């Protein structure tokens, strides 16, 4: 079958647009985080570069790009240079499966606002989120520094504690939507958002993605104050910037996914779908920043206890309850 050139053009245009929007948003999320944290602490935050400091991300970019790119002499050069990309790329790739708006009708064709509508979309997300931690683990390992290694060890310990509960908390959503396809999950929430059926799964998922983003209260792999900067201690210049950008892209993507799985994706009254989606995703970003400004860091045995002894059993019980409910109401 010959692929339709118009179709290909559409897909490429969508990829370009998504990349542009995501990277810009990630840069401005750094600015938003610095501003919000400053307000929480009764400060003003960056307000010097441009009006209200709005050009700060550009200044940061110039700074990161012009800084020296140092590799520790005893480090593993190849892995060291590869790790930041391994942290950032899965985060960007995950966005390919997120439906970020109602399908458009353009030039006589249906144009879904989603880069790839895979029938295993949810599984792809789980897979990519596991790959992302390789960047953390290998970056810390290749640095050949004790702090970086401790940070990546913690990253791995964290992964095994939150990932199971994250996967299990998504099972009820799949059971309700009867599909792994994200567009189907969104379509199933046209009437009623899954958060109303599954508040528990939503909370478990929220805590798990906080851990997945490596943000306070679960920023153990970085833990400045204990581990200098954790896994990216030895990084400088744009490689450090890639870790950083990857983290912020992760916030946007996971916020978007939380909106997709539990808050009805782009569904919402009055306003167009694309605004609803970005509004929800950015509301999650705000929540993450707000939580960072509020809570202290957990110890990493506390996180493992919490993941294994609280979140995972809760998610399992929730699956059982959902299954019973579906069975009794004849939904199955």
């Amino acid at each position: 079958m010959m692929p339709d050139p118009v179709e290909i053009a559409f897909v490429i245009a969508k990829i370009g647009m998504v990349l542009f929007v995501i990277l810009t948003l990630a840069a401005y999320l750094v600015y938003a985080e610095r501003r919000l944290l400053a307000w929480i602490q009764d400060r003003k935050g960056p307000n010097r570069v441009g009006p209200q400091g709005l050009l700060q991300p550009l200044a940061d970019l110039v700074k990161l790009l012009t800084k020296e790119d140092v590799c520790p002499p005893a480090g593993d050069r190849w892995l060291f240079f590869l790790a930041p990309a391994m942290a950032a790329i899965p985060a960007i790739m995950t966005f390919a499966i997120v439906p970020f708006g109602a399908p458009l009708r353009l030039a006589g064709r249906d144009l879904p606002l989603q880069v790839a509508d895979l029938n295993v979309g949810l599984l792809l997300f789980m897979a990519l989120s596991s790959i992302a931690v390789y960047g953390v683990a290998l970056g810390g390992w290749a640095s050949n520094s004790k702090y970086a290694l401790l940070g990546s060890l913690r990253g791995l310990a964290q992964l095994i504690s939150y990932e199971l509960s994250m996967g299990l908390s998504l099972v009820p959503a799949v059971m309700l939507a009867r599909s792994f396809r994200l567009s189907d999950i969104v379509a199933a929430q046209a009437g009623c958002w899954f958060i109303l059926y599954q508040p528990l799964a939503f909370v478990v998922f929220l805590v798990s993605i906080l851990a997945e983003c490596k943000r306070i209260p679960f920023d153990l792999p970085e833990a400045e104050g204990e581990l200098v900067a954790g896994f990216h201690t030895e990084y400088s210049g744009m490689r450090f910037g890639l870790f950083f950008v990857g983290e912020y892209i992760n916030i946007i993507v996971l916020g978007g996914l939380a909106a997709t799985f539990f808050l009805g994706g782009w569904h919402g009254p009055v306003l167009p779908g694309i605004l609803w989606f970005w509004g929800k995703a950015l509301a999650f970003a705000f929540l993450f920043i707000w939580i960072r400004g509020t809570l202290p860091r957990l110890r990493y045995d506390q996180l493992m206890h919490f993941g294994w002894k609280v979140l995972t059993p809760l998610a399992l019980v929730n699956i059982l309850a959902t299954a019973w409910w579906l069975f009794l109401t004849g939904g199955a």
Partner: protein
Amino acid sequence: MRVVDDITAILTGLWTTLKHILRRPVTVQYPEEKRTPSPRYRARIILTRDPDGGERCVACYLCSAACPVDCISMQAEEVEGGRRRAAWFRINFSRCIFCGLCAEACPTTAIQMTPDYEICKRDVMDLVFEKEDLLVAHGGKDARYNFYRHAGIGVTQPRGEGAEERPPVDVRGLLP
């Protein structure tokens, strides 16, 4: 219930930080807005003068002895009429810690602290202030006080003519 308490604690914390987002920041945007320090603020040091315009400093070395970082140095001399003063007087502000002990030690309130805190310089040598940089044309905090009117017996006025001083009693007149 511990779980309920913990969740309440987290929500209380979130509510507190949310309130702080809406609160006015305490930041002072320094070069544009400058805070006026209180009159008793301890910054740049000055050498004040009498109400009559004479130098108050009598070069007693008490300030340089009190200074914990040894940033004050001077040389005493005596001028015509018997008044003492500093031939030269130097404060090294790159060393000064603005503790105010010199001002406390001064018996003539000559050396005083001012609220002028903007004394940064490009060159560290510019922070060494000589007597002419330190000397001001006013009396500072206690403008009316005149040390020599109280203690300058035999130097600026004869015995019995100083402020709050009675003429000397003729002890022979007290004899029975």
